[in-house]
């Protein structure tokens, strides 16, 4: 099942892309597992996700914790802590 992955701010700059469509392996079922899997895709991903603990995630445009399940997810986003206002 292909999902859209979005990257923002310095996560986008480090991965070198704003978004991509990926087919996730069956054993990637949570946000944390997805970050680990992405890190294995290349040095730019390893660099972008080096500090997994500071990266925030959203599934289908809702903030989620890294333990959140990806079941049924269509759009997953990774970004640094927000700094608006």
């Amino acid at each position, binding site marked *: 099942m292909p999902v859209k992955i979005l990257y*923002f701010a*310095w996560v986008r700059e480090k991965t070198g892309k704003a978004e991509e469509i990926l087919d996730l392996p069956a054993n990637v079922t949570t946000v944390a597992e997805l970050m680990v899997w992405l890190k294995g895709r290349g040095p730019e991903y390893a660099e972008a996700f080096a500090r997994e603990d500071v990266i925030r995630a959203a599934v289908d*445009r809702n903030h989620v914790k890294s333990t959140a399940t990806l079941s049924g997810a269509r759009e997953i*986003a990774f*970004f640094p802590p*927000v*700094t*608006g*206002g």
Partner: protein
Amino acid sequence: MAVRVERADFDVGVEVARLTAGRSDIGAIVTFSGTVRGGSGADAITAMTLEHYPGMTEAELARVEAEAAKRWPLQASLIVHRVGTLKPGDNIVLVVTASAHRQAAFAAAEFLMDYLKTRAPFWKKEMRADGQVRWVAARECDGEAARRWEELPPRG
């Protein structure tokens, strides 16, 4: 209840007039507007670029606004947040709350700003006077400001 994310500048007076036009149920209007700080010395900046997550930003601002409306009797509210490249002194964000009485309008405006700062997916990048470019780091005190509202649950 309305939220807008846009590149264009806003006029506080125009926004308040539009929000309250033809209404006589409002007794208190609070506005907060945030502007770009220029900093000084080593922290001086020449510009700031705001990036956001189109779609989620509007949804998150609407959720924050709905949460405020659950907690206080608001007659009207508005959140406007700018994106793109801004200069020191430029407007960034506007929050307007309107209620029958001032307590609700003051509290709701503060709540909206506190929640917006920790939840709305915006990111600031600073162009510094020394030529460096850096992403602004989140501040722990913003998280604390938002968390203190959790001790005050919504009205039944």
